[in-house]
């Protein structure tokens, strides 16, 4: 016979003021199998916990229901209390009297009746709870870092410096990410490349880091501590071991008119190319889409000029496999192109550019070598209009969020422009100036006050071209929405930061959730900001949401700390909420008939085939078997199994059936 203890918490006034807790405790005392039922002001307090501990000992309780707040809040607390009292922690359940009852209903008998129902339901469940034991799994102490931008670089270095192996995968031919494209960085205005390049080199030379550039994640299987990953090394079309990075091929390549991705289309590159001079590794790739040999079948100039005969036209993509224990996702973000904005000409005006393009114009290594010249005719623009929140915070554009970095970089852009074109006039259209951060507000004030950038609070409704000028029509909301019309030479849109192309597909490969904007979702917005809901997969940088450099680096180091903590153990424990296929006595062995329809329903490939053999070693039956290491406990297989041969520990058929039946009896 069950001996259940019920502990009703007042949560001070939170529950107590609305629900008659004494009546709840009293009513529960009458439930068959309840051996003990009390109410108390704060169950989660030390005295409250002691109350539970003592009751477990004195009443020899076989199960505990704590009727308090949401189990999502304090379930671990009370399970720990049970565990300390010698009761298996999985024999403890929580009835949610606060979030689901007292906080959402008025004080009344009906509310108290509901509270009693909620507890009674959990009492019936807990009567059927079985002691469960955490699952132990070994840990492979190698981390996979996806993305070689500043976040990935930082995470990789921190993990490697903690003494663990790291595999760093970058989609582009070089690591560096967006940060390598930037001119100067706010709020200090130090040169982006100057502070980034040493880190890139460190990555390349670190003994614990294996670097795969021009590579992409093919698949990730397994679970925390025990992932198996396949990485596609795209064909660079050259033997990296032989290539010395002399660059002769890139100078001789006859195909020189390909818009450079690194220079955001403002400069050109060759078909065999190194994206930028400081690239790591400093080895070219052949862009097969544009290479004359691949498109027309002849040329091979690079092959001829290469002093080490490193060119390999017939090279194929290669799949490499690794076992890793943790994954850091640092795949970054991208910005909207100007063609996203109908009111700004759908990208048809050459002199309407986005912020990243302006970074390249400002950059000393950029297409204009740092001189501010506009793309259409190379003239120095006398009037530049910067439009903040281009797309961001605009529900009509489907982007409700603030891209966070634009206010700061727009101030920087305007400032750098003024530094370079002293007589020029810079206007900034803005909604709000969001400059929260160390030395940030001071920075924007400096742009306004010292560099005399003219800030106009309002939005730009339309841009059109007239006589070689861009007519920027807007309104100044601080002047009673007075129409403003500026004849500009160049317009820079601080376009919204958005999820990277392919983020959705990547999330599905990684089994992590993503929001409606395809940014990856953290496990908890406040308390678990670098973890995902998939154990062992962590987030760093702008793949989660747009972030600036300090924040990305900070999060990357935080991620590295999580990975290091994970790797500090030789094995780790997992929640035992997993599915189990039943086993029965012969001749049935299991009620599973081996239809294996559950296999395709399982999101984790956790269902395997098990052959049951008789004493003579003959296979008598093939049934399903759940790999507890892979199973995450969703229970989709359980509801799917016709013969009810699979059950989910913690949410068994008996438990949920009893809950429902009790609720309405």
């Amino acid at each position, binding site marked *: 016979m069950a001996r259940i203890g019920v502990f009703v918490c007042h949560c001070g006034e939170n529950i107590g003021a609305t629900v008659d807790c004494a009546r709840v405790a009293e009513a529960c005392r*009458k439930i*068959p199998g309840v051996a003990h039922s009390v109410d108390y002001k704060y169950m989660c307090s030390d005295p409250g916990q002691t109350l539970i501990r003592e009751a477990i000992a004195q009443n020899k309780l076989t199960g505990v229901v704590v009727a308090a707040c949401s189990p999502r809040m304090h379930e671990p607390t009370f399970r720990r209390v049970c565990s300390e009292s010698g009761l298996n922690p999985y024999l403890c359940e929580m009835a949610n009297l606060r979030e689901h009852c007292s906080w959402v209903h008025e004080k009344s008998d009906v509310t108290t009746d509901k509270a009693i129902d909620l507890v009674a339901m959990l009492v019936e469940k807990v009567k059927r709870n079985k002691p469960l034991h955490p699952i132990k799994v070994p840990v492979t102490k190698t981390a996979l870092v996806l993305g070689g931008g500043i976040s990935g670089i930082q995470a990789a270095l921190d993990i490697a410096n903690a003494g663990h192996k790291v595999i760093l995968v970058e989609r582009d031919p070089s690591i560096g990410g967006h940060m390598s494209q930037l001119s100067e960085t706010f709020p200090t205005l130090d040169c982006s490349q100057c502070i980034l390049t040493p880190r890139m080199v460190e990555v390349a030379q670190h003994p614990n880091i294996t670097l795969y550039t021009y590579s992409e994640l093919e698949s990730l299987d397994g679970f925390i501590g025990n992932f198996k990953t396949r990485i596609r090394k795209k064909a660079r079309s050259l033997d990296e071991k032989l290539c010395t990075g002399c660059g002769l091929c890139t100078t001789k390549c006859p195909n020189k008119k390909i818009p450079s991705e690194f220079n955001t289309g403002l400069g050109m590159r060759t078909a065999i190319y190194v994206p930028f001079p400081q690239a790591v590794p400093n080895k070219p790739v052949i862009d097969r889409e544009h290479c004359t040999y691949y498109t027309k079948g002849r040329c091979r100039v690079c092959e001829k000029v290469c002093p080490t005969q490193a060119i390999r036209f017939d090279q194929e993509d290669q799949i490499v496999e690794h076992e890793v224990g943790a994954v850091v996702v640092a795949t970054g973000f991208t910005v909207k192109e100007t063609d996203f904005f109908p009111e700004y000409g759908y990208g048809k005006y050459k002199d309407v550019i986005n912020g990243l393009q302006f970074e390249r114009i400002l950059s000393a290594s950029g297409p204009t070598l740092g001189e501010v010249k506009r793309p259409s005719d190379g003239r120095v623009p006398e009037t530049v209009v910067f439009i903040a929140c281009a797309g961001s915070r605009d529900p009509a554009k489907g982007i409700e969020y603030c891209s966070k970095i634009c206010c700061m970089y727009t101030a920087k852009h305007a400032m750098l422009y003024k530094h370079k074109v002293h007589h020029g006039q810079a206007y900034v259209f803005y909604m709000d100036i969001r400059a929260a951060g160390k030395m940030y507000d001071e920075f924007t004030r400096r742009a306004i006050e010292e560099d005399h950038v003219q800030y106009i609070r309002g939005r730009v409704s339309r841009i059109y071209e007239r006589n070689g000028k861009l007519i920027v029509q807007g309104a100044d909301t601080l002047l009673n929405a007075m129409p403003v019309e500026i004849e500009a030479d160049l317009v820079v849109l601080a376009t919204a930061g958005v999820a990277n192309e392919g983020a959705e597909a990547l999330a599905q490969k990684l089994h992590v959730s993503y929001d409606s904007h395809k940014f990856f979702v953290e496990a908890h917005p406040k308390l678990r900001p670098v973890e995902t809901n998939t154990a062992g997969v962590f987030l760093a940088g702008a793949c989660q949401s747009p972030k600036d450099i300090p924040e990305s680096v900070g999060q990357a180091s935080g991620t590295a700390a999580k990975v290091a903590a994970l790797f500090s153990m030789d094995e780790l424990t997992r929640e035992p909420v997993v599915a189990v296929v039943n086993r*029965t*006595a*012969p*001749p*049935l062995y299991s009620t599973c008939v081996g239809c294996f329809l559950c296999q395709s329903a399982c999101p984790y490939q956790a269902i395997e085939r098990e052959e049951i053999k008789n004493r003579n070693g003959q296979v008598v039956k093939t049934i399903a078997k759940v790999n507890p290491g892979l199973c995450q406990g969703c229970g989709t297989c359980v509801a799917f199994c016709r013969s009810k041969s699979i059950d989910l520990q913690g949410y068994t058929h008996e438990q949920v059936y009893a809950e429902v*039946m*009790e609720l309405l*009896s």
Partner: protein
Amino acid sequence: MQKRSIRRAQINVLLEKLLSLHQVIYAPQKLGNQVDFAPLRDLQDLTLDHIQTVRSAKAALFPPVEELLRYQRAGVETELQDRDLTNLAEQVLFGTRPCDAAAIAPLSAVFTTDDQDAIFARRLERTTVISVSCERSDGDCFCTSVGVGPGDSRGSDLLLTRLQDDEYLAEILTAKGEALLQLAPELFGPEPAESKEAHLAKVQKRFDWEALHDKLAGAFDHPFWLRTALACLGCGACAYVCPVCSCFDIQDEGSQKKGRRLRSWDSCGLALFTLHASGHNPRSIQSQRWRQRMMHKFSYMPDQLQQLGCVGCGRCSRACPADMNLIEQVENFLFA
């Protein structure tokens, strides 16, 4: 026993009278393409123009679901409440065939030998059986092979046999039959001159059940079973339409607060019937279950209850989705 006559129209009057006395009348009615027993609400629905109903009339005595007791939790105690037998209705089985009526004896034997089943006994006590002799039969009928006949009066309180177009011979066989007569004596005419034999169906005798009984005694391990039960699907159709089959299951339904215990039909043809909690099943394959059915009817029941478990109604043959025809099975067995 006395013999009287009654006209078809008067039979209806009698039934009307019974209905007006709040008696439940189970009678053959047309349901879709089938004729089956059901509580009679309107005399228009009544049919006698059929060979055999799909189901037997046993549900009136041994319902598919029968409550045995109820329980309710009061404080820490649990109160048990036996089935109240005082409110069981008086009922009439009308239009049963002589084979159906003959089945009441073996059915009663199951429920009343050694221990009396109170509910069954009370139901039987409150049941009056008005049978109608068979004028026609079909290839599935074999009553004469198991000692029953198309005009057999066993088990009936009143037996009607059609003589002319709408004239019936009424054999008043028991006190309950007598009570029927007394209920409306004016409806009955004098004993007709004609005897019923000429008007009964001719049912050919297909096998000798005593020979079958004797052969079965040593046939438990006969290879016949395996061979002939290949087509058997393992459902309970034969048992559920059978007037004699009486296996049941006991189920408790309810919560810890209140509930009840039910008796419901079961069948030895179903694999679950003999499945042990351990997972072992002493009758692991269908041929063993088929054998059990034959053995039970033709060997064990005669031996232990002195009643043959079959009255030759042929319902099992008609209901079987795999056409396991009982006559053929028996003939083949005797030949094997």
